């Protein structure tokens, strides 16, 4: 395979991994924050067993697909093997709307708090990416920076947020939507 594919296959490639990512983040295959370590362990072992050349074609697609598959499989297994604990049950009974909105508000607060821990420039890059939907090149142009520094700002931001954000709350905002 040549290093650079045509534009058409770029879109294809994008679709290839964005869809599994969405499944990993939301719906039945969503991985609850509490189980993430266990899921990762299982995914790791599956990655080791899986044919390497296959993986290389669409590494991210495989990664998120495997993770959501594991989560979905375990959800089924646990449904049968685990007694429903009271807390979970009451959560089911008190039907969703007001409470969910409340939890969502908490999650928004939490994300905002974490974003405010970033440097102004890191915030600017995130905002351009997520609020304005710009790609790296466009962000670089807008900020008068190199793409390289944009990427660095982004990866630093992600890393900081990963440590800053309450993982439980992350679950609230991503799990089960869509």
């Amino acid at each position, binding site marked *: 395979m040549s290093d650079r594919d045509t534009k058409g*296959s770029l879109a294809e490639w994008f679709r290839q991994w964005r869809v599994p990512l969405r499944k990993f983040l939301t719906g039945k295959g969503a991985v609850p924050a509490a189980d993430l370590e*266990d*899921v990762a*362990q299982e995914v790791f072992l599956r990655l080791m067993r899986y044919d390497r050349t296959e993986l290389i074609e669409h590494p991210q697609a495989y990664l998120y697909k495997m993770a959501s598959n594991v989560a979905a499989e375990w959800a089924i297994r646990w449904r049968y093997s685990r007694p429903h604990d009271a807390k979970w049950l009451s959560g089911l009974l008190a039907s969703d709307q007001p409470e969910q909105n409340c939890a969502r508000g908490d999650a928004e607060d939490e994300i905002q708090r974490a974003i405010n821990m970033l440097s102004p420039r890191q915030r600017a890059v*995130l905002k351009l990416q997520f609020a304005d939907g710009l790609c*790296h090149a466009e962000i670089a142009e807008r900020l008068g*920076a190199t793409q390289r520094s944009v990427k660095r700002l982004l990866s630093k931001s*992600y890393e900081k*947020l990963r440590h800053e954000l309450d993982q439980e709350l992350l679950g609230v*905002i991503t799990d089960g939507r869509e």
Partner: protein
Amino acid sequence: MAASNRHKRASEEAAAWWVRLQDEALPRAEREQFVDWLRESAVHVAEMLRVAKVHGALEQFRRWAHVSTDGADEDNIVSLGMPSPVTGGSTPSIDREGEGAASGPPPPVSFPFRQRLRLYALAASFTAIVIAGAWPLISLRGQTIQTERGERREVALPDGSVVAVDPETRLRVKFEEHTRRVFLDRGRALFRVAKNSDRPFLVQADGTTVRAVGTAFGVERRKQGIMVTVAEGTVAVFQEDSALSPPSRGDNTTTSQASNISQNRNTATENPGAETLRGVPPPSASNGEGPSASDARRERVGEFPTRQAAEVLLTAGEQVIMQSSGTAEPVRKVDSDRKLAWAKGRLDFDNETVATAVEEFNRYNRVQLHVADEVLAKRPVSGVFDASDPESFIAFIQTVAPVRVARSNAADIILTMAATPAMK
């Protein structure tokens, strides 16, 4: 290396990969690197999943209008370690690709990254396993590779050799000009050694040294001694003076030791020496191998009274256990594929007790099995299992014994015998 450091590095790397992978279709070489990085450790997988979660949260976030970016302009590139503020992207940079799309052709640059890729590709063609982050660390100083319970790693060493590191294992790597030296402090590992006859590959564990040139073999620290199993080629296993036991990490004393190593070996059996040996049975004790074990070894020693004292040559499909006392058990013919199956995440039990099997499973998994029944614990079990799938093991023993399974929580499974103890 502290676990927290490793986690920190893993999360840095994961974030960097995330950004890189998002940008556009990656060249194959980088995708290879990414896959190998993922397959290096479950920690990497976990971090990658976490970054995705962070991304998911940011995508869901609705209050961007409230996020202030005041000061973003002043907080400029100087603080990022760039030489001067950049305007319009004409400053030389080492961006890899796409940078020039908006502002003319990319500047002529050197590609240290690409060069590294090529090296990786080379290593990959030999081993199929490459590690991105470990390289500079290993070559600059000795590196410690440590795995926790439930964690397996494959690490490519700078010479192209590859180590499959089992859970709960600690290795220290010291490469010098004339020797490649690895200290196995704990656990077990499978070595696939890149050929280099000028630079022997030595694995040291508790006074026992395994010397290889280009071959594949497993070394395991067990209660009864150091077990060496050869899958390919030939290795020499010998005892050393305990004074040659590995230096504490961080120091640089190995160079002098390298030259002493062959000289000092003759005192090996006499001098268990300064280093405390763990609870190992005396050489005369029968050690599952029957009383002939120590006799056989005495013959061997008798043949080579001096320097070659306890040297044992092993070829493919052979296994030996070197006791800490300096006694070598007789060389056994084994199915090395089976005996080294653990390196591929498989557990092979040959008439082991359920207790032993459970102990093994627990090393590979976060879900821990507990046997709350002595009769069950002593029951023998044979078979090959996927180390990551204790459930299938439970299912298996349930077919041969009335075992009751209780799950107190998601991480602990308790096994007991059902009402009537049906011991054969």
